């Protein structure tokens, strides 16, 4: 509302208070997020190495970046990781939520068990996971001592499979959280619709497939946003679990960017990879945000 010239004090006050209240958050956002993004994009065109410096080098960093074979590896890994992670988390989350919604005795006990991994960082659970996945002391070893000697589970040591152990641990951490979101969605569905569908003779399977799951669309969308943001930011997990190895087999863009910016003293290349990452994120998120926010208007 634009205040009329003859508005009284209270009305005028009420017109600018909301904007005033929003402004600190906005200012912080503009400086600390968008300002920094611009800064980082700018750095990607400079010869920065150990600290920011401002010698303009044009596209050189991007050129170097695309010549690095393990940048490619990290992008491919990101594709594998993100798609598997999002799909598996969604499936497990939805499945568990549906099962848990069947008037399960002990739901109060199971729910926190499913949820708690989200509370832990991989700095905390990294070692336990590493042990568990290690064929020498972990699952494989345990199976062997239990007499199943042909059991093999050495993915974490295997260049081609290591990325899947990263997926496994990541799914462990977040699928319970996704479950909670779906459970919330399920609990919000009107029972009368379900009864009506049952009167129509729908089987349980059809009930879920045709009636319930389509109604969970908002939960799917929320899950997608949260999962994709976690996938993009996955960093601690890789560092704690594989350190990017074996070799560079589990390198992700986030770890790539970190290592170039901070441990390899090639801040320019690091910034270039960050820029590409941000553009990818933007390409995925902006259409989504646009659709979501427009709808609500």
């Amino acid at each position: 509302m634009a205040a009329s010239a003859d508005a009284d004090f209270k009305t005028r006050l009420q017109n600018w208070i909301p904007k005033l209240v929003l402004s600190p958050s906005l200012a912080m956002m503009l400086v600390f997020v968008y300002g920094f993004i611009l800064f980082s994009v700018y750095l990607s065109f400079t010869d920065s190495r150990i600290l920011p410096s401002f010698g303009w080098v044009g596209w050189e960093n991007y050129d170097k970046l695309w010549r690095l074979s393990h940048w490619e590896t990290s992008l491919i890994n990101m594709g594998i990781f993100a798609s598997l992670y999002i799909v598996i988390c969604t499936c497990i989350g939805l499945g568990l939520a549906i099962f848990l919604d069947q008037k399960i005795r002990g739901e109060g006990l199971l729910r926190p068990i499913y949820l708690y991994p989200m509370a832990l960082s991989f700095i905390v659970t990294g070692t336990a996971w590493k042990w568990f996945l290690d064929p020498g002391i972990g699952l494989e070893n345990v199976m062997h001592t239990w007499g199943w000697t042909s059991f093999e589970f050495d993915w974490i040591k295997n260049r081609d499979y290591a990325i899947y152990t990263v997926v496994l641990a990541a799914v462990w951490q977040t699928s319970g959280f996704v479950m909670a979101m779906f459970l919330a969605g399920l609990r919000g569905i009107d029972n009368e619709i379900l009864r009506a569908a049952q009167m129509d003779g729908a089987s349980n399977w059809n009930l879920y497939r045709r009636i319930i799951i389509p109604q969970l669309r908002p939960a799917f969308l929320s899950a997608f946003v949260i999962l994709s943001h976690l996938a993009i930011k996955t960093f601690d997990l890789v560092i704690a679990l594989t350190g990017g190895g074996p070799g560079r087999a589990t390198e992700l863009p986030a770890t790539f960017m970190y290592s170039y910016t901070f441990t390899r003293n090639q801040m320019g290349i690091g910034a270039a990879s960050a820029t590409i990452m941000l553009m990818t994120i933007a390409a995925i998120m902006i259409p989504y945000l646009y659709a979501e926010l427009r709808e609500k208007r």
Partner: protein
Amino acid sequence: MGFLDIDNATKSYGAVEVLHKVDISVQEGEFLVLVGPSGCGKSTLLNMIAGLEEITSGEIRIKDQVMNGVHPSNRNIAMVFQSYALYPNMTVGQNITFGLEMHGVPKPEREKAMQEVAKLLQIEQLLDRKPGQLSGGQRQRVAMGRALVRNPDVFLFDEPLSNLDAKLRVDMRTEIKKLHQNLGTTIVYVTHDQIEAMTLSSRIAVMNGGYVQQLGAPQEIYDTPANIFVATFMGSPAMNVVPAKVTVLNGRPHAEVAVHDGSMAQLPFSQDNLAAWDGREILLGIRPETITDLDGADRKSSNIAQMANRIVVTEPAGSDTFVSMQLGGRDVIARMRSDAEVAPGQDFNFAVNMEKAVAFDPESEMRILP
């Protein structure tokens, strides 16, 4: 100058004008009802009076004070919302006195005012409850209490009864009417229910498409609707509107209407105004209650016409029986006494009280008679 003046008020959102130059003047103690279908702009107008929406152009004055740009709380108005808008975290008592508290009224006075209002509305025993524990009717009372306690210049009601069940709605309607009669306050009341509009108001503004279609006393609007929209919107069942042709027989204009078998019935008008329309098409408006059997016809009427037609369906409704027939190619409803002897398929001799008949220009849809 009225008590509340709406002077050429216009509202637009961007380029879209949703209210067009509304001009209403409300007198002190008047009960104005804004009625119309959803999206007609009635709630927008109410919100503009309340100060919840800005006025794009024009003026709103209360007691000759221009209210444009004045904060809602400084207009000395009170509002009852459709959902009652009771603050869920406060008790009934706190809900009622919240406005006073915001205006800095000291606690003892607030208490006193609250007790008075609670007594008036018979909700004393509810004062410590939370809104979630109340029934619909009780919430309605609390919402009114919250408005009353402020002792405002103008009460605004935004469809306050639409969330109640049918019986309660009727009771509350009566209650509001009583309250208005006892307190003599000025009320602007928004509803889409024309019965509420008729029963409660001292004047009605019928709105559609952002225009005030007609402003007047209830009976005036009922008897002489300004146009087809008002005619069909007000009254239940709605006024029958059928195409007819004006023929002047014996110097008197008649409406020539086709009955079920295509033969023509001639219905004489009471007035002569339509002589100029001789031979032209009009739309004839007949209220259901003016079509009866011969015994049920209004004895005071000086112009009862007879018309033979075939009954299609009968719907006994206890107090009345509704009878439908074909007239002018349309379904027409007649409202008969419950003991009228009618049966589907029967050829029946109807009495039409042409004194109450209305005629519209089929092109402009405006009333041309009476």
